[in-house]
Structure formats: structure tokens, C-alpha cells
């Protein structure tokens, strides 16, 4: 009986803990938004963070986008030519990149490249008591440290996802048209026929914006909330990457089911 009570108590404690953390994360988001105005008054801080999370992620995003596009071109051609419709290759590459792969893969890469760095930085600041020191000097650490990193991620992510998609389409074109020899005209015209600006491009952009917000919030929150020890920081970084990936994939399913329902 007491063993059962122990198991139940453990389960209850875990649920209470996770709900408490979720609530803390939401309150933390509101605090970040509240002090954003204060941090925007010192715009160079945010620009610096756009450099660190956006510009420095450019290489991995562009190279991965190119390779994803190349693979899509090869696999798409292999399948489509069985149905004698290899000219639809452009449509397939563009739609799969714009709707799903662009935002999702760019989000995953962004979480592991930029999100983990942000968590590590904030976690280390907390461990070395820099955040407390700022508080002592009447500098709000949320306005000075957290909000610029959050906004840097939110601004960078949609731009990175757009570049990822553009690069992927270029990769698909490279394989399909240049290497395999699909007709250039039908590649582009079928793509333009099938891709709708409002339906595909804007929805993909909204997705990447949502993922950027989620990843940035997770990264700054895990950094701020970490145990101030070396081990705590490393666990916070792991949690950032794992929960970002899960949140991106789960949100992607939810957003897709709202955005693309056939009609």
C-alpha cells in the first residue's frame, strides 16, 4: 500500500513540478515582453545578438539547405519519373521545402546552433553570478541580457528559414535541371502554378516565426532557470536542444493541421 502511495506521490510531484515550470516559463515570457521596450532603447544589444544567432548560423543553414534540396531533387526525380511526371519535380521540391522542411529543419538547426549557445551563455552568466551582480547595480538582467537574445532569435529565425528554402530550391534545380536534364521551363512554370503566395509562402513564414519564438524562449528560459553549477549548465543545454526539437515537431503538426487541410 505504501509502495503504491510512494509511486503516486512521485508521479504527482513530477506533474506539479512540470506545471510549475510551465507557469514559470509563461511568466518569464511576459517579463521578457515587458522589458523589451527598455532593451530596444539600446538597439545595438539586439543587433549584436542577431549577429550571433543569425549571421553565424548562415553557413550551416545555407549548406544544409543546399544538400536537402539536392537530395529532394534526386529522390523526387526517382519517384516522379516512374509516373512519367518528372516535370513536376519543381512543384514537389518547392512545396515540401516551403511548407514543411524549410521551417522545421531550419528550426532544428537553429536550436542546436544558436539556441544551445544562448543557453550556455546565460547559464554561465548565472553560474558566475553576473546576473546577480547586474541586479545589484540596478541593471535589470532581463532587459540587459535576456530580451536582446530572445529578440535576436525571433528576428533571425524567419529570415534563416526563407534562405534555407531558397537555397533548397536552388539545390533541387541544380540536380533536376542541370544534372539530370528536366526541362528548365516546365520546372519553374509548374512550380509557379502550384505554389500560392498566401497559402504556401505566408503560411511557411508564419511557421518559421512561431518556431523561432518557441526556440528562443526555450533557450533563454533554460539558461535563466539552470542550476548554477557546471553540471547544471550542461544539463540545461541538453534540455534546450531536446525540448526545442520536440516542441518544433509537435507545433509543426498542430500548425499544419490548421493551415493545410486540403481546402
Amino acid at each position, binding site marked *: 500500500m505504501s509502495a503504491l502511495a510512494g509511486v503516486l506521490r512521485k508521479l504527482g510531484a513530477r506533474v506539479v513540478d512540470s506545471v510549475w515550470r510551465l507557469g514559470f516559463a509563461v511568466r518569464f515570457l511576459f517579463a521578457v515582453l515587458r522589458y523589451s521596450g527598455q532593451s530596444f532603447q539600446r538597439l*545595438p544589444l539586439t*543587433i*549584436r545578438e*542577431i*549577429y550571433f544567432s*543569425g*549571421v553565424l548560423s*548562415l553557413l550551416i543553414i545555407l549548406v544544409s539547405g543546399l544538400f536537402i534540396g539536392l537530395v529532394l531533387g534526386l529522390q523526387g526525380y526517382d519517384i516522379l519519373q516512374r*509516373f512519367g511526371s518528372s516535370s513536376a519535380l519543381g512543384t514537389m521540391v*518547392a512545396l515540401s521545402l*516551403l511548407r514543411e522542411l524549410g521551417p522545421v529543419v531550419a528550426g532544428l538547426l537553429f536550436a542546436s546552433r544558436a539556441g544551445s549557445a544562448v543557453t550556455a551563455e546565460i547559464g554561465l552568466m548565472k553560474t558566475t553570478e553576473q546576473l546577480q551582480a547586474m541586479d545589484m547595480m540596478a541593471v535589470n538582467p532581463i532587459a540587459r541580457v535576456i530580451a536582446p537574445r530572445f529578440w535576436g532569435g525571433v528576428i*533571425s529565425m*524567419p*529570415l*534563416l528559414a*526563407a*534562405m534555407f*528554402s*531558397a*537555397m533548397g*530550391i536552388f539545390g533541387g534545380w541544380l540536380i533536376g535541371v542541370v544534372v539530370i536534364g528536366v526541362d528548365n521551363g516546365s520546372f*519553374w512554370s509548374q*512550380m*509557379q*502554378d502550384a*505554389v*500560392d*503566395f498566401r497559402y*504556401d*509562402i505566408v503560411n511557411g*513564414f508564419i511557421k518559421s516565426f512561431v518556431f523561432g519564438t518557441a526556440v528562443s524562449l526555450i533557450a533563454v528560459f533554460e539558461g535563466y532557470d539552470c542550476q548554477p553549477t557546471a553540471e547544471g549548465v550542461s544539463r540545461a543545454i541538453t534540455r534546450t536542444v531536446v525540448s526545442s526539437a520536440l516542441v518544433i515537431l509537435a507545433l509543426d503538426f498542430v500548425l499544419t493541421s490548421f493551415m493545410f487541410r486540403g*481546402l
Partner: protein
Amino acid sequence: MNRTVLDLWVGVFVVLGFAALVFLAVQVGSYAELSSGKTYALEAPFDNIGGLKVKAPVKSAGVLVGRVTAVRFDSKTYRAVVSLELDVRYEFPRDTIATILTSGLLGEQYVGLEPGGEEAVLKEGDRIAMTQSAVVLEKLIGQFMFNKAAEPSAQD
């Protein structure tokens, strides 16, 4: 990092990002198509629309002239009413025939307009009187099977 170098890189990054978006909108998407011109609405009742969908193209002589905006069922006449949106640049005679066609064997279905010879043209809100339903493959196959099945018994 030097402040001016940092600003420069962020500027390049933002420009690249927006360039990618513009590329997606203009080269990949069909942003310019039909969105510039004004349109007028028509209605066409069909006995059977097959697999026609909203946003399917409306073509005449193979050229895109408009899109399907809505499909609804008229419970009085038991027919499907398809709303079309045509570019104002294109005018069609009143006795135009609307047909539901399929592009390729397995392609998507679209509305084909065959102009008649009348002087008066269709205007906003008009109804296309003469229509031809979609060819439903199952019905065709059913008829074919029925004929095949009927043949040997006729020989007896």
C-alpha cells in the same frame, strides 16, 4: 567585435533574408498571376462536377483566364453550382459552353470554356446555361463492363 563590422554583417544578413523571401514570392510563387487584374464573377450549374476543387483553373483554348472560387450544391435543382472568377480582360459570348475537363490522364480537373457565336457577352453575376459534366471514370468503366457482359449472352 568592431561595431561597424558587426552592423555591416547584420545588414548583409537582413538583406539576404529579404532577398530570399522576394525570390520565393516572385520566382517560386505565383504572386503576380491574376492578382493585378480585376475580375468578374460567373456561375455555372453542372450535373456532376467530378473532382473539381476550389481554386482550380478556368481555361479557354488552353490559356488560364480565371479560377473557381466556390462550389455548392443547389438543393432545389439537385445540381452543383460552380462560381467562377474571370479576368476582366477576357470576355465571352453568352452562349459559351463550360465543360469540366481533366489535364492529362490523372491530372487535376479544370473548367474549360468554349466560346459560342453570340454578340452579347457574359457579365458579372451571369449564369452559363450550357454546361457539360465531368467524365466520371467509374461510370465509363461500368458501362464498358456492362457492354462486355452483355456481348456473350447476345451470341447465345
